[in-house]
């Protein structure tokens, strides 16, 4: 497998061709810099130009397991550890929002054994993580079609959301049973309900009102649109994830399978983001 930075693997020009500055320098820590800024500087990143909201499509668990001759459940467990690490790093580096695509609407078509395992895994992860979230100031939100989730998972999600609602250091959004198109249709339905209640006229519906009704509009507390969207395992598509919200997201596709996505890969993605010429003028996002 070609390394993820190789354009032949990712169908992208060498990043040096797109950089508008000279090759990344390794700046020296400055006196008085905060510990976070210093930690980032040591890694070649500038704190002031990090993305505020990172989204990730966690793809490749099953392939990772198959490559090792293991059942997919082992891959999903390894994927869980990768997500935990990404949450820790995001908090440590001052990322304000992280949205992770855990289970799509289309994933319901997978074998029942795998789906049941994943539902159980999500429940266990949320249950086991609440204490850590409270300690680290992480707010949890779950978006997606909850009606299809097991009742126990719905309950534990609601309880975790309630328990962490006052946290503000990092907004963690898990997209479970999520579909970008369904989200758009649901936003439409919510607007129609407002029209029905006479709280709104149909002709007043515009982009801003529509965006407010999206699940992510309420989930990310001021950072609804990801600045950086990462997809692992070499796939180059959104797969019905954050279709509306990703208009100006820097897309970073890497061949690394999700369970192998660690600090070095995250740094590479953040570094790629910082090297981009991302001038969108005064465009309303």
């Amino acid at each position, binding site marked *: 497998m070609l390394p993820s930075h190789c354009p032949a693997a990712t169908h992208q020009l060498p990043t040096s061709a797109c950089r508008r500055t000279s090759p990344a320098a390794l700046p020296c820590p400055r006196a008085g810099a905060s510990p976070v800024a210093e930690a980032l500087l040591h890694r070649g990143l500038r704190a002031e130009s990090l993305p505020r909201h990172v989204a990730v499509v966690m793809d490749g668990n099953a392939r990772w397991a198959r490559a090792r001759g293991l059942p997919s459940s082992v891959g999903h467990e390894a994927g869980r550890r990768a997500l935990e690490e990404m949450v820790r790093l995001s908090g440590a580096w001052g990322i304000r929002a992280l949205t992770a695509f855990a289970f799509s609407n289309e994933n319901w078509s997978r074998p029942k054994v795998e789906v049941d395992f994943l539902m159980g895994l999500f429940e266990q992860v949320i249950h086991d993580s609440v204490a850590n979230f409270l300690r680290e100031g992480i707010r949890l939100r779950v978006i997606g079609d909850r009606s299809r989730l097991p009742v126990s998972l719905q309950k534990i999600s609601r309880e975790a959301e309630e328990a962490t609602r006052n946290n503000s250091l990092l907004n963690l959004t898990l997209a479970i049973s999520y579909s970008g198109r369904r989200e758009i249709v649901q936003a439409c339905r919510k607007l129609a309900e407002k029209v029905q209640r006479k709280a709104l006229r149909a002709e007043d519906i515009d982009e801003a009102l529509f965006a407010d009704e999206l699940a992510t509009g309420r989930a990310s507390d001021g950072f609804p649109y990801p600045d950086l969207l990462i997809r692992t395992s070499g796939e180059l598509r959104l797969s*019905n994830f954050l279709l509306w919200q990703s208009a100006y997201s820097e*897309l970073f596709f890497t061949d690394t399978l999700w369970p192998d996505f660690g600090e070095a890969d995250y740094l590479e993605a953040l570094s790629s983001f910082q090297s981009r010429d991302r001038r969108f003028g005064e465009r309303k996002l």
Partner: protein
Amino acid sequence: MSRPSVIINLTLGLLWFIVHLAINFFSLWSHLIYNIEYYLISFGLFPKYRKFQLERLKYLAVVVDIREAKNVAKIKQLLCWLSTIGVKYVCLYDIDGVLKKTFEPAINGSRDVNSGSYLDVGANMKVLTCCQKEMTVEYISGSDGKEGIAKAANLLCSTYFNGDKDTCGNDEIVFTEADMSGALKAIGCGGPEPDLLLVYGPARCHLGFPAWRLRYTEIMHMGPLNSMKYGAIVKAFYNFSKKYQNFGK
């Protein structure tokens, strides 16, 4: 400052310079290798790039950064190349509608109503003949994206409440994806989902390409339009032809 510390500083400075030089050299070398590869592909020297199948590529979309969308000559050259390769349908997008405005007189002059009807496409289309090959070109902008979805929502709500005067205030409102697709088509913002989307510009973003049409589209960043290469397009299409999608299943 003592002599040893001066020597250390100079040594570190020299090492820093060498590292920078090595990185620059490596970047230049990588860039050179890729450009040579693209030129060799253009001359048809790699058999695999001459013989791949394009059947899976039914609809292609191209997103152009607004700063580059004004380069009419490059856009025309791109369309010509795509036609040469065998692309039958291209959707050109830039957020401000520069392409739509630039080619609008030509669109109005040669609009073929029939060519769009089966594709659920709006009015901004033309059939292009380039190198004796026909290709349908659709021009869209940001107004067909988020603005289009908001208008579709407006239409859905208006139709729902105006169509049934007996609608009870407590009736549960149910919209489906098919309803939204129909509404988008009705306002001229329908259109096929591209199989592949090429992004030309400095940033790797789709810049607001209509969200409804992006579900499973492969997205490839091609770099600046000014430095586009025929070989890079061929390679992108070849890589696309090798892709496998399981659609989440």
